[in-house]
Every structure is written in C-alpha cells, then in structure tokens.
C-alpha cells in the first residue's frame, strides 16, 4: 500500500498572515512552495523572524495556513499526525516518565503490544547510545542526552518526515558536533525525510543535502542550494568535511547573504 502512496512532501503556495489584536497583520510566510522527496535532508536557514518556525508548525499541523496547503501521502495536512514527527529545541520530554517510557510513548498511545515496544525501545537506546540510561529519569540526563532521547522518541513512531526546530540549539559546541554526526547517521540509517531548522550556517551546510535560505517580511524562500557535504559527512569525519575548500567558500557566500539581510532589517527599523 505504501508503494502506491506519494511519500513526497508537497508544500503548495503556503501563506501565513498573523493578525494581531491591534489590527495590524504580519505576513509571516508568503507563497512558499517546496517539494521534498522521501529520504531528502533539508536544512533551513534565515534571519530571526523570517518564518522558519511558522513553516515547520504548518507542516507539523499545529498551524493552519491562511492560504495554500501541505500534502503528504496523498492527504492534505489538517492537524498533527504520527506520520510527521517533531523534535523540539528542549523541554518537550515528559519528566514524569523514564527514558524508556518517553521513547515508547508513541507506541503506547497506539496500543502496540508491550513486548514489541520493549524490543523497539531497546533497539533505539542502542542506536542513540543510551543503552545504560533506559531506566533513568529525564532530569538525571545532560542536555545532549536529552536530545538523544527526543530523537529516539521521534524515531520510535517510524514517521515519514521528521521536523526539527533548532534541535541542537541549546547544546555546547562539542556536544553539538557529536549530535550532528548522530543526525547524519540516523538520516542515512533510516532513510527518513528530515527538515531541520538551524541558526548556524555551519550546521546548515553539514546537515543539508538541500539548503534553503529564507528572507523576512514577507517570509519567503530566498535561495536554494544543493550541497555535497552531508553525503560526505556520512562517510568521513565532520571535521574533515569542514576542511574542504568548497565548504569554506559556500560558508562565506551564505554568511554574506544573511548579513546583507540582517543589515537590511536594521536599516528598515531606523
């Protein structure tokens, strides 16, 4: 059955206008269109307030766009669904459950048999490198470990698309680098479609087969890149990838685009 469905994520002319209580309205997104094939890894970059989170929330089904639509598996997105998993920056784990219970949450909600849940959770704990921490409480883990749990919890549901809003934003540089490696490994290992929002140009370059640069007011897609670094990172060490001359050149190029936009925003404010 899966074979017949279209597992490409279609974002068709999505617009989102927020109307504030005082009557003014903000065009958070205007006419955003995008197609993401199964197994693609997309990173989204852009100055603060350009509508990245809004776009992700629309795809996740938390927000209904004022115009346009999102289609996955031949169905129009109207609300959250386990086919679209979400990883938040932090604080979205359930502290009242053990690590194991957190990871198994989605399966439990769908009444999967206990033994099956246990098997799946064990497997995921192994994959994210937390096999010794299964019975710990969430608040006993470090920030990096917590994000591993969040990833595992999302994967347990076997979603078609994984949406991540700055998943590594709260981590220190070293942990972050390790986690970037893990994301690449999971992407390659599971073949999931992944959309990842980030504020870091380096992260966007490393974790994006495709990289979207968005521009603000109204929020729209400014430019799209196709990048080889994610594929390289799967095979080699991330630090080796960063030494690549194309990497440095692309980084400079994108940084200057972002700087230009930031300056424009500042200029408009004055």
């Amino acid at each position, binding site marked *: 059955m899966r074979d017949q469905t279209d597992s490409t994520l279609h974002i068709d002319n999505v617009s989102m206008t927020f109307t504030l209580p005082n009557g003014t309205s903000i065009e958070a997104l205007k006419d955003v269109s995008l197609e993401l094939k199964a197994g693609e890894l997309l990173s989204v970059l852009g100055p603060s307030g350009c509508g990245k989170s809004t776009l992700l929330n629309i795809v996740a089904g938390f927000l209904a766009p004022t115009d346009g639509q999102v289609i996955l598996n031949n169905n129009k997105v109207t609300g959250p669904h386990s086919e679209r998993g979400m990883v*938040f920056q932090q*604080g*979205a784990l*359930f502290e*009242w459950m053990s690590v194991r219970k957190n990871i198994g949450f*989605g399966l439990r*909600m769908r009444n999967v048999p206990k033994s099956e849940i246990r098997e799946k959770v064990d497997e995921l704990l192994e994959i994210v490198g937390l096999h010794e921490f299964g019975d710990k*409480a969430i*608040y006993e883990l470090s920030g990096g470990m917590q994000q591993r749990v969040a990833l595992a919890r999302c994967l347990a549901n076997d979603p078609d698309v994984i949406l991540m809003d700055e998943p590594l934003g709260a981590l220190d540089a070293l942990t972050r680098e390790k986690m970037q490696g893990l994301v690449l490994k999971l992407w390659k290992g599971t073949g999931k479609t992944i959309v990842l929002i980030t504020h870091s140009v380096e992260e966007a370059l490393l974790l994006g087969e495709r990289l979207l640069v968005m521009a603000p007011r109204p929020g729209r897609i400014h430019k799209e890149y196709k990048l080889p670094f994610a594929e390289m990172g799967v095979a080699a060490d991330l630090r080796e990838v960063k030494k690549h001359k194309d990497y440095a050149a692309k980084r400079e190029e994108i940084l200057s685009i972002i700087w230009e936009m930031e300056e424009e925003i500042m200029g408009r404010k004055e």
Partner: protein
Amino acid sequence: MLVLTIYIAIFVSAYFIYAFAYGNKAPKRGFNANKTITFGDESAVTSNRTASVISVITIFTIWGAFTGSSLVPLHVPGPFTGDTSFTYTATNADNQQDDAVVYVRVGLVGEEIEDPVAPDVANPGFAIDDVATIRAWRSGLIKVRKNDFGSDAEGYVVSAIDGQPIVPNQTVSVVDGQIRMTGKGTLSFEPNQGWQMEAIWLPAPEAIVKRLIEISRDGYQNVTLSENIGWSLFRVVTGFLLGSLVGIPLGYAMGLNDWFRGWFDPIVEFMRPIPPLALIPLVIIWFGIWEQGKISLLFLAALWIMTISSRAGVSGVSISKVHAAYSLGASKRQVLLHVIVPNSLPEIFTGARVAMGVCWGTVVAAELVAAEKGAGKMIIAASKFQQTDIVIMGIILIGVIGFSIDILMRYAERKLVPWKGKSD
C-alpha cells in the same frame, strides 16, 4: 516585657558565646565550606543546629522559670507565701494615737489555710491586733478598725502604716506587699506577686504533660482525646477530599475550555480572597452547626485553592510537550491523561499542602464556634472552666498535628512527583 527582654538577652548572649567558642572554626562542611561570600548568598545560609537546640531549650527554660516548674532548677521569684505582718497607727476622735499589728497569712489558691494566731503579748490602748488570710496573687480587704475601741466615733481614722502616713486612695509599701486604703478607709493588702505566672495564666510544662497523660487516659468531658482529634481530622480529610474532588476537575475544565473559564473565573476570583472563617456565620445559617455545616465550610476552604492550583497546573504545561504528544499520535484524551495531568501534579501538590493547612486552621476555628467533639471544642470547653492547662495542651496538639500533616504531604510529594522543580 520582662520576658521579652530576657529572651532577647539570651538570644544575643548565646550568639556571642557561640561565635566566641567556635570563632571561624565553626564546623562547615560540604558545598559551602570554601565559599568566601556567604552574606547575600541564600544557598550558603543553612539552619544552625546549635541555634535551633538552644532556641527550644530557651523557650522551655523561660516557661519553666516563670511558672515555678520543678523541671527547671532556676526560677524567677514567686509570689509571697507564708506569714507576714504590718503595723497600723490609728487616730481616734480625741486625736490620740495607738499602734496595733496585723498578722497576715498568705497561701496559694486552693490551699487550705488557717488564720494565723496573734502572739500573746500585751498591747494596751484602743487599737487591737488583727489577723487575716489572703491568697497569693490576690488582694484582700482587712477591716482593722472593727475590733478597735471607739472606732465607731466620728473622726476615728487609720493614719499610718508601718510609720508611713496614709490617706484614702493612697498606696504604701510594706515588707511583703502593698497596702492600699480604699475610698472608705478600709485597708486592702496585696502580697508581693513576684514574677511568676499563676497557673491559671500559664501552667508549668509538667502540669500540661500530666494533663495530657490524664486526658488521653480518661478523656475530657466524656470524650476521649483520640475521639476529639479523630473528629477534627475526619472533618479536615473529608472536606479536603470533597474540595479536591470538585476543585481539581473544575480547575482542569477552566484550564482547557474557554466557556468554563469565562463562567467560573468571576466566581473563583471573588471567592478566593474571602477567608473561610468569614463564611462561618453564613454556613451555620444555611447548614446548621453540626457536621454538615463544618464539612461544607472545609469543602469551600479547600475548593478554591484546589481549583486555582489545578488551573495553574494546566496553564503551566509547556506547549511543546503538548505538541510533541499530538505529533506522537496521542488523542485528546491521551494528552489529558498522560501529559496534562502528570504535568499539573506538582502544582496540585503545592495547592494540596496549602489547602490542608487552611482546612486544619478552619476546622479548629469552626469547632470553637460549635461542636460536640473536636480539638477546638475541647479547648473552648476548657477555657470556660479556666482550665488553662488543657487549653495549652490542646493548642500544642493542634500545632503538632498541623505540622505532621505538612510533613506527611511533603513526603508524599517527594515520593509521587520526584520531578518537581526539575523541569524547564
């Protein structure tokens, strides 16, 4: 005033003695041992055990010292008891003067005292010696002129006490007390009261322990102690449970549904600041003074607190947790059950602790107004008979039980919501 001064003096001197004895060597361990900045660092201020111990000992010592307790070696001076005497000078109508002695025996209240006997010595003249008995902490009129010769005549007055001239409404001091002359010229003797308290004001600690043993064995007014306390606890627990049973779901409804919130917000916000005690009269009018009334009162006391805390618990759920749950395929019911309810438990526990405290205070107050059995009823009954020892025993029991309830709730909180204060 005196007690306060002594208390402050002990506080200050204990502090300096402790500081002098330990100096900077005061044992500090663990986390704070190497902190150089402690003033202003709240976490570095831990409760000083020595101070707590001295504090408790001080209270009992002062209590014992001021009540003549046998448990405490040192006492402040007690009231005068025993035999004493003073001399009065009478002036008769012919302006002649004569002295006579008044022999006074002072005994404690409730003690059997016999009249003192005047020594058999010759005392010529018209003023005749007198005897009197007086109770400690009280004063007594002594009609010294009654047996004097010629005291009926106009112009016969008592003109001096122990050589000190006296006129009506004046007070003079004698060896063991004070003498006041009333407006009509009668003497009133008040033996020295000392600094100790009379048992009717404040009984000694051992008297209270004795009462406690006696009452827990025999009961008070045909009600056993455990019955009294049991009834109070029963009311508190029933009222609290009913209040929670209605309040928690109501709070959830207010947190989850705008119609519920709009409907109940004005009611809750209006009822919240009304102290439950202010409702007693109305509750008595509506529900009568017996169980129904008291439990309704406690129900109301717990209701608003529990409603507000569970509403706050729902509002406190971070939206990303809820979003995460929906994305993981949870239904509304599952989100409520597995995310919103557990997430609100810490708030609800905080509310429950407050509610139990308020209920306990309210039940005692309600029992003071009307009850057949209960801790409050016991002390109000005892106060009518001026049985101060029972009153104080009751107050201490009420305090101890209130404290125990809070400790139990805190224990339950640690066991049931170990993640409290650890989420972000």
